[in-house]
């Protein structure tokens, strides 16, 4: 249940679930996200343009021609959180990763004082929860990594990180959908396309609330899958 509702300008609402970052709070956010989307597609809630879940906030953007702040507030106040479900299509994914592309693995092993193989093992044995997707299209923020692997961002972010790179910072793991600058510690790379701007029906592989496990592949398999 959100703790506070406030307006963001004249066409947005902030549902504030507090300051903590954990799965149970994020699950509440995602339940409300699914409910708002469903009510909007059913035609029970008019004028919703975008609905963006993050760790502990849900931001709703609406069309001021069709609705307004007070009407959305009234709707949100009637939501019975005990009756909300995570969407039925909550998927579990297995994503291939090739650790040979882990350009920061060596340094991580030095900083954490843990063997490279052990780092890989912990990563492979983690069932990740997709907290949110964003910043750029398809980019997932997943958790929770074992506290043993907690690392800060790189002091100097890289100018160029190849698309498909998988990084970790603190308890989070991400996948870079595009070649971009970035400061995460890169442990590997996936050949799997996680965002497809030519597919209007299913452009994004993951959804908030999904779970992800990684599967280790060789460089040869990586190349084979990349060409598919």
């Amino acid at each position, binding site marked *: 249940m959100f703790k506070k509702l*406030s*307006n*963001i*300008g*004249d*066409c*947005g609402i*902030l549902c504030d679930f507090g*300051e903590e*970052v954990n799965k149970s709070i994020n699950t509440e956010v995602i339940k409300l*996200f699914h409910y708002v*989307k469903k009510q909007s597609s059913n035609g029970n809630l008019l004028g*919703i*343009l*975008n*609905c*963006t*879940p*993050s*760790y*502990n*906030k*849900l*931001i709703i*953007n609406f069309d*001021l*021609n069709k609705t*307004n*702040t007070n009407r959305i507030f009234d709707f949100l106040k009637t939501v019975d959180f005990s009756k909300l479900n995570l969407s039925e299509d909550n998927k579990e994914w297995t994503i291939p990763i090739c650790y040979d592309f882990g350009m920061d693995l060596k340094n991580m092993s030095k900083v954490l004082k843990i063997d490279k193989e052990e780092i890989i093992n912990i990563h492979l044995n983690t069932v990740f929860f997709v907290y*949110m*997707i*964003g*910043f*750029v*299209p*398809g*980019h997932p*923020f997943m958790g929770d990594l074992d506290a043993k692997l907690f690392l800060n961002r790189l002091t100097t972010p890289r100018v160029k990180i190849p698309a498909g790179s998988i990084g970790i910072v603190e308890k989070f793991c991400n996948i870079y*959908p*595009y070649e971009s600058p970035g400061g995460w510690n890169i442990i590997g790379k996936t050949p799997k396309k996680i*965002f497809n*701007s*030519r597919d*209007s029906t299913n*452009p*994004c592989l993951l*959804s*908030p609330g999904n779970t992800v496990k990684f599967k280790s592949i060789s460089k040869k398999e990586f190349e084979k899958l990349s060409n598919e």
Partner: protein
Amino acid sequence: MNNNFFEVLRPGINTTFQDQGRFNLQHFGVAPSGCMDYESFTIANALVSNDKAEGVLEFAYQGPLLKLIKGQTKFAITGKVHFKIINSKSETINGECNRTYDIEEGEQIDILATNKTVYGYLAIEGGFSVSPFCNSVSTLSRANIGPNEGKKINLKNKIFFKKNRQEKNNYFINVQNKNNNLIRVLRGPQHNYFSDSSKKDFCSKNYKISSLTDRMGMRLEGTILKNVVSTNIRSEGIIKGSIQVPADGQPIVLLNDHPTIGGYPKIANVISADYDLLVQNVLGTNLLFKYIELEEAEKAFKLYSENIKETLETKSIIK
């Protein structure tokens, strides 16, 4: 598909296909994009009798030079734009905005510059032949999403359009001049992160539009806004018009191509009614912000929508 097309002889600085924007995808990290100046976009489509959701070409500062290679069409340019039409005998006529023109094979549209504004629009009768992604033909060039492989229009691109000219008459619309550097805002979700003097400074001092401004965000330079709580927050969803303040205390107004989530405190949000005015202010302009209340912002938006409606009703045949 027919084979009517323009060739791009000069692309302009930032020429992209845009419509009303792409929605219902922000939870996947896709920003809405869409036309920056909604009013000018709407007038452009209305002039050539298109559906209000039809895609147009948007340009910034300098527009494209287009040669009609095949077909005949009718076009309109809106905003405040200096442009010429060059016929096949190389004779030029100076174009006027907010009216339609017929253009024939071999003729050129030379969109030279926007006049003391940023964005202009080119709509053609029946629309451009571009395929939508998730119900929109808006370009999000940062993520290669949209027509033309998600890229800005480039030299020698062919720009296809759907049909030959059918309408016989030409039309004009009476558009009021509305330049303004006074922008009304509502207090943002993290307004209280800022010191009392900074809250006051934000709405009494000038903030200058820096050259690091594009469709993603408008960077401002002015009196430093002092954050007294925390210069970072947990990433949360972004809405266009939000004014975030990073640790350096210089505000950034997030525009149509904004990142979908962000971790900087937001001092204020530009009201919807003033967004078109905001984005049309050129680099180097000193903006002045003014706090108002939600109810006033909603009234202002009603007035804004009524004004557009009234403007569209002035559409008349050029005799």
